[in-house]
């Protein structure tokens, strides 16, 4: 895994009760920025760069929260969400926070109908606001 570009960062939580997040996003630079941010804030972060990879990881591992982009290569985010919710995987009922640049009402409604807990438009939030939202859903 090519995680070496990430900086070593002090974390705010002890190793034992770290919440595990999967960030499903195809833009590697955005993944890097948010992987750093979320790690600093004390989360454990796995990434998936396309929908297929995301489904594979969701099937194999358990996550406390899913941070999900919608426009993804191979399998789009709507489908990932639909399959997760219909599955018997360990994360099937965990909060899904959509993190997309599709800001249309129709996209937001579709994602919510499929079982998304929140819908964030990437460009419109500061990293701190994103962390805050994630914490809310992990309470």
């Amino acid at each position, binding site marked *: 895994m090519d995680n070496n570009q990430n*900086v070593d960062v002090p974390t705010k939580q002890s190793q034992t009760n770290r919440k595990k997040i999967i960030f499903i996003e195809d833009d590697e630079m955005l993944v890097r920025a948010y992987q750093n941010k979320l790690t600093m804030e004390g989360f454990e972060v796995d990434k998936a760069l396309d929908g297929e990879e995301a489904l594979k990881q969701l099937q194999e591992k358990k996550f406390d929260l899913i941070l999900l982009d919608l426009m993804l290569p191979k399998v789009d985010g709507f489908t990932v969400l639909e399959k997760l919710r219909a599955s018997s995987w360990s994360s099937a009922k965990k909060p899904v926070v959509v993190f997309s*640049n599709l800001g249309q009402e129709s996209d937001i409604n579709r994602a919510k109908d499929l079982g998304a807990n929140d819908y964030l438009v990437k460009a419109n939030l500061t*990293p701190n606001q994103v962390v805050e939202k994630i914490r809310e859903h992990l309470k």
Partner: protein
Amino acid sequence: MENNKTEETEKKSAEIKDFLVSVIGNAPIGIMTINMGEIITVCNQSLLGIFKKDISSEEAINQPISVFLEKVPSLLKAIDHAYLKGRQSFNMPMVSYEDRFLAIRARMIADGMLFFIDDITDNIAHSKEIDQISCMKDDFLNIAAHDLRTPMSVIRANTEMILGGDYGEIPAKFKIPLQDIDQSNLSLIKMVDDYLTIGRMEKGKITITPQPMDILPILNFHVEYIKPLAEKRGLRFDYIIPVKLPLVLVDSNKIPEVIANLLDNAIKYTDKGLINLKVSVNKDSIVVAVTDTGIGMAEGQQRTIFQKYAQIDGKKRVAHGKGTGLGLGLYISRLIVEGCGGKIWVESELDKGSTFYFSLPLAKTPKATNTNTNNH
């Protein structure tokens, strides 16, 4: 004497006739007349060309229209109908004839009907092409605007993390350049947002749903938001807001954008003096007024400022250091306010300042609504 006069008159009318024949014969539009018996009486060269008739005008004259136009049954039908109704004039803006499109105008004359027939096939093809290009352009700009958001979110995340000290303390001299990067990027994000919002509003993908609401909390929120920004620019900020406001009909998701927009503009275009926010209650509406002592606008501009892509005069903006913006903010505000049933307008004087107003209709009192409901 008598004879001379008759000769002269005859000569003159022969001249007029030649002149008219020449005008009609050479007109670049198909001209034809028929008599009451639906027989062709006049027919020019252009008309023969349109219907691909390889005959002379003389040969066409005296032909029954039903034979001459047998391939254009819709026109024959329209003529029959017009004769039945007492030779009524009619227009047929687009009639298909073989692989062509014709525009036909028919007018009644003393002893029959006069037709002007134009081949508009090329015009139609041209306007279709323009429509197609315009759609492609819209699609392209929407995709481009959307794709711009991803790199802008990367810039935003990284800049704000560095500025926020996530990677450790930053040297003081980096702070302002980093803030400038962040601010410029936020302007870009706003521009792209506005562009996408307009597209969606125009396609009806964003609907405005006005509901009775107290806008006092929204106003107070914006007062707190704008205070430090005004202070930072060395401007005084005053406000007069009643302690209680009646309910108005607004879309609670959209109206904050209008208030923010007017206040942001006031700050953006004012170098010194003050910004004033005033809310007043009228008989059937409340009026929000944002006054500034900024660059103002000439009268011509006041009329167009709420249109799409409208902007303060280019040179003035540049001189003011405001080279950015798409001129969509006030257009969006207008769509929102009008969508709520209100009005938006401006009073301004060049170099003196502006006051932007918008009104929102009062919601009917709950009492009245209850009475209505109880009647069911």
